């Protein structure tokens, strides 16, 4: 008996404990300290994976965060000054490694390696943006408008980076205005954004509009946005609630501003024509402001890299849809895709990560390595995800064997932009622009919202995780239609209520409870890891 348990202990030490409770499980929920979500100790994943995590993910990323700052910052002291000046910087980005921990919990082998490369690229892109902000910010340079300031194009985060490629050869860089102060912060440290939501409500905004627009406006109310460019381009984002954000931005930024609309009913050819005109107007506005002409060469050079990244993604989706050998977990897939398509090509980090992931993926295909062996259901996640709990997919796999294969945000921009003629390029950029996040398949018309069914088939999924953004008036309006379709088509689907960035409205524990209820009462299944069913992480990042 003692020999047997010794053998098991040695096996657990060498390979890590097995996943499921029946096999003597790893009980990941017991690693957490109460409330804070900090670890009593990090997970022991077996010798190889624990040390891979320690050196190649934890240590590697800490080290590369420093080298990235040195690489992208004109003066590293500006980075320190920026951290001291901006709440979204200091409060959010220091605990970034915990963001890795949450997203990669329980991952082993190739899944751990491939998913972490997606995270690495996102961290690198974030640091580049942060440094670009601080290099140009007049607040950190005694009000001086330096070269970096004069070479920055500031635009709303849902205006894709593609739009600004023509000026990049001339040394201009594009910073998505809210991507770092708002969007990424919610994933890394969900506490920060609450300050901005409260700030805008404190000046009289009611609590029920989309909390994304609230938070983005709140940044300006708290005067927490760098003054980093001589002009700005705004847009109505996913829905018209953001028109109000644009108005507030016009007021508070107090710089020349071009409002570039994102039309909703983009299938209408006349709407598309209108959108193409608006894009050309925007380009003329940039030419006027910068004094630099539109460069076709600069545009094509980057579009080709963007198209290559798209083709890479199609390769990955092919493997994800047709086999069990796709090694990237749900959260790493989703965030990499939305981040890279919005930020665009402004460095080699996306391509480098993509190549590394493809290499791992083909190894899995050749050697038939199933990185998610405990998969019980292949899940497609639809609509807009809770930013404060984007790692729910990791939890759902660990707890229930729900493997999120693909999600709506990844699928929005699945197109190449033609570069043979200016007219084709403009037409495709307009389509790409109109297929913005939370737009194409969320509020872009019924036929697009219901693209779910064909993607379910394409990715060979048997279950739907339906996000239910409680303050999104667009998607709330079609809740019943989805219910009807799920019944008609006999599809297993669960709803996940949330309030995008605001973790106070629906807590993570509540989201977990809803999924637990569905899995026990409807699916009649037992959890793989019962320790993850219920735990208190109310104070966690």
């Amino acid at each position, binding site marked *: 008996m003692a020999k047997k348990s010794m053998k098991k202990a040695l096996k657990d030490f060498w390979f890590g404990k097995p996943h499921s409770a029946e096999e003597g499980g790893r009980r990941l929920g017991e690693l957490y300290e109460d409330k804070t979500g900090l670890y009593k100790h990090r997970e022991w994943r077996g010798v190889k994976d624990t040390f891979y995590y320690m050196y190649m993910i934890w240590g590697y990323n800490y080290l590369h965060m420093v080298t990235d700052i040195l690489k992208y910052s004109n003066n590293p002291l500006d980075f320190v000054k920026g951290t001291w000046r901006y709440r979204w910087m200091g409060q959010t980005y220091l605990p970034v490694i915990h963001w890795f921990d949450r997203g990669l919990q329980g991952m082993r082998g190739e899944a751990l390696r491939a998913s972490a490369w997606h995270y690495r690229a996102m961290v690198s892109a974030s640091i580049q943006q942060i440094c670009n902000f601080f290099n140009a910010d007049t607040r950190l340079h005694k009000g001086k408008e330096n070269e970096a300031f004069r070479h920055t194009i500031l635009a709303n985060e849902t205006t894709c980076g593609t739009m600004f490629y023509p000026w990049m050869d001339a040394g201009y860089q594009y910073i998505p205005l809210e991507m770092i102060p708002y969007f990424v912060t919610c994933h890394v440290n969900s506490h920060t954004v609450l300050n901005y939501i409260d700030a805008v409500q404190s000046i009289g905004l009611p609590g029920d509009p989309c909390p994304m627009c609230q938070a983005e406006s709140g940044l300006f109310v708290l005067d927490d946005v760098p003054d980093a460019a001589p002009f700005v381009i705004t847009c109505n984002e996913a829905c018209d609630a953001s028109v109000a954000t644009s108005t507030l931005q016009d007021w508070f930024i107090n710089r020349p501003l071009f409002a570039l609309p994102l039309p909703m009913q983009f299938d209408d050819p006349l709407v598309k024509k209108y959108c193409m005109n608006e894009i050309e*107007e925007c380009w*003329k506005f940039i030419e006027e402001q910068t004094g630099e002409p539109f460069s076709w060469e600069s545009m094509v050079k980057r579009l080709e890299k963007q198209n290559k990244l798209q083709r890479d993604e199609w390769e990955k989706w092919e493997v994800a849809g047709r086999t069990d050998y796709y090694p990237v977990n749900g959260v790493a897939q989703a965030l990499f895709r939305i981040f890279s398509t919005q930020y665009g090509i402004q460095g080699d980090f996306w391509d480098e990560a993509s190549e590394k992931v493809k290499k791992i993926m083909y190894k899995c295909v050749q050697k038939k390595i199933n990185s998610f062996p405990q998969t019980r259901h292949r899940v497609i996640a639809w609509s807009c995800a809770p930013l404060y709990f984007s790692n729910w997919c990791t939890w759902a796999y660990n707890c229930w064997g729900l493997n999120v294969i693909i999600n709506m945000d990844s699928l929005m921009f699945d197109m190449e932009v033609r570069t043979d003629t200016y007219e084709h390029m403009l037409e495709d950029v307009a389509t790409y622009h109109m297929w913005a996040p939370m737009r194409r398949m969320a509020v872009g018309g019924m036929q697009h919202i219901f693209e779910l069914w064909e993607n379910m088939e394409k990715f060979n999924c048997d279950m739907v995780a339906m996000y239910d953004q409680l303050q999104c008036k667009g998607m709330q309006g079609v809740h019943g239609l989805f219910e009807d379709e799920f019944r008609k088509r006999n599809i297993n689907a669960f709803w996940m209520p949330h309030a995008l960035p605001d973790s106070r409205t629906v807590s993570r524990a509540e989201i977990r409870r809803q999924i637990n209820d569905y899995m026990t009462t409807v699916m009649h299944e037992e959890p793989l890891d019962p320790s993850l069913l219920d735990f208190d992480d109310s104070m966690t990042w």
Partner: protein
Amino acid sequence: MKKIKCRIAKFFLKLLGIFVLANAAIFVVFFFDLDGKLMFNVVEPFLKKHYDNMERKDTLKTPYDMDKFPKYEYKN
């Protein structure tokens, strides 16, 4: 020659010792999430206090200069 060899061996042993100790220390920080605990219990509260007490411009007093910049004329 023997002395030199001995010194070199000692030097490398010392180096190895430092390497092992440094790695052990890093492992302790990593495994017991000491970096997370430091951020959560010390760094974040300190920075939060700083940001909460920071003097900020009352942005609502910014005049909404509708006519500050010339009216934009569409070119198309």
